[in-house]
């Protein structure tokens, strides 16, 4: 019930929806569940490792026995891996994409599991709604595409970005500045913020609607017929719940797709 932080504050007689008093309460679970030595483990860190174990477990049990006719579960895992390998790595990066398949598979499955925690009953907390985790994943992608860019093109990667030869000379400095800021600053920032903001928005909507629904319906004895306000909130919350499943999968796909596009722009750097 600690998720329903609104319950204590909500004035069901005068309000029609239970907005949280302070939104920060939704995102700051600072209480420590248990500690290992001096390191306290919060809910986020616990779920972070749980997501990693779930991914390893899925891959282990899905690919344990490679048979001519795989089991149903094996087919699902194999088609996911095939999807990342063919539809993301090979289609976007090209034949050289095979080198990046392990990385792309890892982030795709991790983000997918992390996002789906949002709609998993009893967990209901997307770990990617904490800025640290998408920021870390975006920094890893950033390091990869910058290193690949410099490794393959030496310093041409930087010089051709700030002084693009295919642009008319009068505009070159302007395009150069825009490209420099866009590639080295905005790319990792938007990559992280896109995932983070989508999951925060979904989590917030679910908490607001389902929380309001439950609070109004449970306070039926006190407010009488006004408790029926809870029904549309709850129904809308359930509709958003289904929508969030789609968003979770789509955001995992988009994060992986954009990582592949950024790596591709370093591999085939032509200016």
């Amino acid at each position, binding site marked *: 019930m600690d998720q329903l932080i609104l319950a204590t504050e909500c004035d069901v007689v005068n309000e029609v929806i239970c907005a949280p008093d302070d*939104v920060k309460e939704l995102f700051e679970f600072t209480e420590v569940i248990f500690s290992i030595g001096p390191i306290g483990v919060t809910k986020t860190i616990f779920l972070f490792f749980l997501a990693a174990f779930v991914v390893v477990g899925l891959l282990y049990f899905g690919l344990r026995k490679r048979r001519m006719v795989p089991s149903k579960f094996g087919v699902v895992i194999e088609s996911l891996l095939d999807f990342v390998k063919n*539809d993301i790595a090979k*289609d*976007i990066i090209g034949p050289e994409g095979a080198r990046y398949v392990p990385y792309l598979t890892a982030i795709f499955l991790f983000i997918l599991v992390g996002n789906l925690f949002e709609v998993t009953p009893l967990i209901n907390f997307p770990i990617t709604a904490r800025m640290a985790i998408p920021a870390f994943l975006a920094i890893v992608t950033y390091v990869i595409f910058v290193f690949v860019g410099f490794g393959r093109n030496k310093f041409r990667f930087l010089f051709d970005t700030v002084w693009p030869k295919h642009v008319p000379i009068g505009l070159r400095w302007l395009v150069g500045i825009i490209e420099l800021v866009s590639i080295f600053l905005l790319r990792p920032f*938007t990559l992280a*913020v*896109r995932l*983070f*903001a*989508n999951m*925060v*928005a979904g989590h917030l909507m679910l908490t607001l609607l389902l929380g309001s629904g439950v609070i109004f319906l449970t306070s039926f004895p006190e407010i009488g017929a006004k408790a029926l306000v809870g029904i549309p909130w709850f129904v809308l919350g359930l509709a958003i719940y289904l929508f969030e499943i789609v968003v979770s999968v*789509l955001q995992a*796909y*988009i994060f992986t*797709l*954009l990582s592949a*596009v950024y790596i591709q722009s370093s591999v085939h750097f032509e200016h």
Partner: protein
Amino acid sequence: MLEGDIEALKGAIAIIGYGLAAIGPGIGIGIVVGNAITAMARQPEMAGTIRTTMFLGIAFTEALALIGFVLFFIA
């Protein structure tokens, strides 16, 4: 002005700012998806490629709205 009034005003301005930030990307995503549907209807055999490109376009366009959403909480 009282402290509470300033807080309320800041909140109201943040909501208006988010509304403004949502206009451009709303129009943009409409254009992207609309044109992708036209392209898919004309050449159904290219639907897979067009869908991937459409998601890319949506992702780039959507970023502005999401930055507005984040600023709404920061403000």
